[in-house]
Structure formats: C-alpha cells, structure tokens
C-alpha cells in the first residue's frame, strides 16, 4: 500500500506544480485530472469496494453543482458553498441509498441511472429554482484568468487529496473490511455481524459527498450550469470506466485511470472530433476485453518475461501495489505477495 501512496503523492505533486511549469492549457488539463481523480475515487467506495455498480455519479455531481451555484448566488462564501453542497448531496445519497440499496446488481444499476434522468428532468422543469433548460449563471471569480485557473486547480486538487485520504482510511479500517466482505458474499457478511444496510448506505454516502463538492467547484469554475451538462449520462459512464481502467477496489487505481483517461481523451479523441465518441466506445470495448482487472492488476513481470526482458523491470512494482485485501484471488503467484494477497494475475471479476 505504501507504493500506492507514494505514487499518489507523485501525481498530486505533478498537478500542483503545473502552473509554474506549463501554460494555462495544461493547468486546465491538470484540473480535469484532479477532478476526475476525485470522482473516480468516490465511485470506488460503492462500486469498487462494495461491489454495487453505481451509475449515479452524475446525479451527485449535478446536485452538487446546482446546490453550490444556488448557495453562491445567495451570497454564501465560496468555500462554504462548496462544502454545503457536499452536505446536501450526502444527505440526498443517504435517503436515496436507504431506498435503492435494497436491490443489487442489475436492478441497482438501472435504478441508479434513472436517478440521473429523474434529476435532470426535474432540473429542466423546475425553472423557478434552477432556471430550467436555460441553466444557471454563477458569479465569476474576480482576479483574472490565471488567478482563477490556479484557484480552481488547487480546489480540485484539495478535493482529490481529501477523497484519497478517506480511501486510505477505508482500506485500512474495519469499515473497509466490512465493505469488501459485503462485496464477496453479502449474506455471509450479515452472518458474521456486519450491519450490511448501514455499511452500504455509508459507502453510498461517501461516494456522493465528494462528487457533490466536485460538482459545486465545477459550477463555480465554469460559471454556468445547465441540466444536460450537470446530469450527463456520458459522465456517469466515464467515471466507472476510469476506475475500471486503473483498477477498481484499489486505492491508486482510480487516480491512475483518471490520469490515463484524460490524457487519452485530450491527445487522441479530441483530434478526431467527429468520431470521438466512437473512439471512446472502442476504447471501452478494448478495456473490457484486454484489461479486465485494470492497469494495476496486470502481471507486468509475466509480460516482461515474455518480452525477454528478464526478471522484473522498471514496472515490476506495479504488480504488487494493488494493496487490496483479496479482490483477485485466483491463482496467486507462488512468490506470495505482501500481506497475503499476491494479486499479480490480472484479476477476473469475482
């Protein structure tokens, strides 16, 4: 796990240094990396650790965006508005979770997507509050583009760091162990004394709060929100894909996935504007078939051996960084990994 934390610090430092080593374009890009990193880490609580495939991310982002915008427009100081938006989103998630976490798997997935749709439709028709389809304008931050760019970069970075810190806590705690048990066998977890309802709602709420804050920061950053962007089905799909790309159920996987995804999106897909959605789709298809456990679960040593590079190689560390307490159990390598998990083989979905 320490390797994962070190890797995260490297990424966070990289993001933090951007304003001094590159121009505004890269600052913006780094802000997106931080944002998606926070979102993917959030999803990881309910989707990765607990095994409930949530597609409600956009619902929380959108709700946070509108809450943050409304608080800000009402005169609440910026950072407080963001935090309050997080609280509102968390409360919503707790209530929703109480209802929707009773069902699993497919039904849960479908239910969670529908929440996004319902919220979007409500935002569109409740024009009195939300400005309806025209959207809502938010006060622009004073101080010029460079200054604003840096403020929002560090704001998003702060959210990502906070989410990561909570992730590390979850990974090590009794709570996290309970979530993993629920993912493996919910009835058995219940039997050994895990309060499964409370734990699930807790994970769901955790998955929402940082999405809400992120949404609020985003609304302030772009200074405008509208239903279609705030409650975007595309976003609600991209975020789990990022977590899957890096490795769900791990502490660094979501961040890695967000980083790789944003870079791919900028460098490849933006070039082919007309076909970028298709290319994204193709990437997803390729990911599902060739990277079932994500980047962190690839057996780099085995690939290295096959390519004739001999023992390990620079990336050998990645195989052991998964730091999970057993999400990929099948045929651990005989060297037996750290902490008894040896998760070196690309994990098959449980």
């Amino acid at each position, binding site marked *: 796990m320490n390797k994962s934390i070190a890797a995260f610090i490297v990424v966070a430092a990289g993001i933090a240094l951007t304003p001094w080593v590159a121009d505004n374009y890269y600052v913006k890009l780094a802000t997106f990396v931080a944002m998606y990193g926070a979102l993917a880490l959030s999803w990881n609580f309910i989707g990765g650790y607990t095994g409930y495939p949530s597609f409600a991310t956009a619902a929380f982002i959108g709700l946070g965006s509108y809450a943050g915008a409304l608080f800000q427009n009402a005169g609440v100081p910026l950072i407080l508005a963001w935090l309050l938006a997080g609280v509102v989103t968390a409360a919503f998630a707790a209530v929703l979770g109480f209802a929707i976490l009773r069902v699993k798997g497919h039904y849960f997935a479908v239910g969670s997507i529908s929440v996004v749709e319902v919220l979007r439709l409500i935002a569109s028709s409740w024009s009195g509050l939300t400005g309806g389809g025209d959207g809502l304008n938010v006060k622009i931050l004073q101080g010029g583009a460079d200054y604003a760019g840096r403020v929002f970069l560090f704001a998003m970075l702060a959210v990502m760091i906070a989410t990561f810190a909570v992730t590390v806590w979850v990974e090590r705690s009794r709570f996290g162990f309970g979530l993993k*048990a629920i993912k*493996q066998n919910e009835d058995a977890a219940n039997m*050994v004394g895990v309060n499964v309802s409370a734990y699930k709602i807790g994970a769901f709420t955790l998955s929402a709060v940082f999405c809400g804050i992120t949404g609020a920061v985003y609304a302030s950053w772009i200074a405008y929100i509208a239903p279609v962007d705030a409650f975007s089905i595309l976003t609600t799909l991209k975020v789990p894909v990022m977590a899957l790309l890096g490795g769900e159920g791990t502490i660094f996987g979501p961040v890695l996935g967000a980083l790789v995804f944003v870079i791919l999106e900028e460098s490849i897909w933006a070039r082919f504007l007309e076909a970028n959605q298709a290319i994204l789709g193709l990437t997803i298809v390729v990911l599902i078939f060739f990277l079932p456990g994500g980047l962190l679960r690839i057996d780099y040593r085995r690939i290295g051996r096959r390519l004739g590079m001999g023992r390990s190689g620079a990336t050998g560390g990645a195989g052991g960084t998964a730091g999970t307490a057993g999400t990929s159990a099948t045929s651990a390598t005989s060297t037996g990994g750290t902490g008894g998990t040896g998760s070196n083989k690309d994990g098959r979905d449980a």
Partner: protein
Amino acid sequence: MLEVRQLTKRFGGVAAVSNVSFELKAGEIVGLIGPNGAGKTTLINVITGVHRASEGKVLFDGRNVTAQQPWQAARSGLARTFQIVQPFPGMTVLENVVAGALFAGRAASRAEADRAAMEHLEFVGLAHEAERPAASLTLPSRKRLELAKSLAMKPRLLMLDEVNAGLNTGEIDRALELMRAIAARGVTIVIVEHLMKVVFSLCQRVLVLHHGELIAQGEPRAVAKDEKVIEAYLGHKFAAKLKTMDGAAALAERAQEPVQGQTLGQAQGNAHG
C-alpha cells in the same frame, strides 16, 4: 438462555415451522433431528433472523429478539454454520476468520482480530493454510473454516447445521472431538444432524422435528424409542410392524453404529422401498 415460543414460519401457504416451543439452558449440547425437509434449517434461520417469524417469539437471555437482523443475532452471541458453506471466496483463510473476529467477535483492532483468528485456525487445525485463498480449500477444510469463523464470533450459542455432511468416518471423529472441545469451553451447542452416532455420543438432549412440528424432545435413547419419532422416520406401516416385533430397542441400538456411512435418512429410504 434461549427460549422459543410457538414459533411458526410460513412460506406462501406452507408452514415450514409450526408452533415450535422449547428452551435451551446454557452449557447444553442439544441435537436437532428429523427427516429431510422437517424444517430444521428453517428453524435456525428464523432464530438467527434470516427469515422473519410468521408467529411466535424468540427470546435470548430474556430479550425479545424475534425481529432481529442476522448481524444483530451474531453480535449478541448467536452464531451458526451453514449446510452449504458460505466463505468469502476472494479472501484468504485467515481473512475469513478475521471477519468473524472483527465484527461479531468485537475485536478492538485489526491486530487483535488477526491474533484471535490465528488461534481459532490452530484450534481447528487449519493454521498452516492461513494464507491460502479460501476458495481453494477442500470440503472438509471448508467445514473447519466455517467452524473457525463461527468460533471467532465468540458465540454463546452455536448452531451447527450438518457440519458433518460429506465427511468420511475419520473426519467425523475428528469433528466430534472438536465439538466436545468447544462445549468444554462453555459454548452452548445446537447440532443439526442425520448421523445418529454423532447425536447419541454428543447430545444430552434431542429435539425432533417432523413436518415443521416438534414431535418429541428428551434424552436421545428415550426419543429413539418414541413411537412418533419412529413413525416419522420409518413411515406408518413399518412402525406398526416394529411395534409388534419389539424392535424399537434394537433399532435404537443399531442406530448408534455407523453402517458404512449410511445415515438414518438412508435407512428410512430403504425401509420405504
């Protein structure tokens, strides 16, 4: 310690458990027997909160726990094993037991849970497998893992649902020793069994279920001679025959011997056929 009053559980129109009442005192080892489909597992499920009772009450240490969730039962000291073992497949053997220690077992920290888990693994003889994935164990080992997990839950009442199904004679003997050792630690045990050898050698008292009803309870030998019990297992015709032959006593004795792995259930089958 445990009091069950007029407990009934219906699924649709069928009563799987019907008006069952009994009491358990601390330190007892009680057998729960009955033909297949008698409702033994359902009874355990209702007591531990997996199913909600349709009627009746369950009292644990005087508290009404009828509507409790399984995790609440676990935390208050009621543990059970499953007929079809339910491990956490992606976790190691050790982690499986840690799960029991960490939650129901109220360990103060992960480190304490790890220590307790290793102790329990040693107790059941699985310490050398601690780091292996639980999914890779053989069936007898899985049963022992299930046992270790329930012990880690620090149960005061342990309900074992056919822990011996699928085991050979030698393994059964070892299991028997384990269970005596557990009882010696002060745990009250309810054991659902088909093997009369186990029931007779281990249990002080036996409860007999048939079609969801409690048809007899008492000392093993007395129960074995009970007409209703014989009829339940062997069927009406054969039971009538047996009465005239005074074979009841002979049957009770015969039931103690393992007939090369044949259970009383199989004897029942032979009798009908």
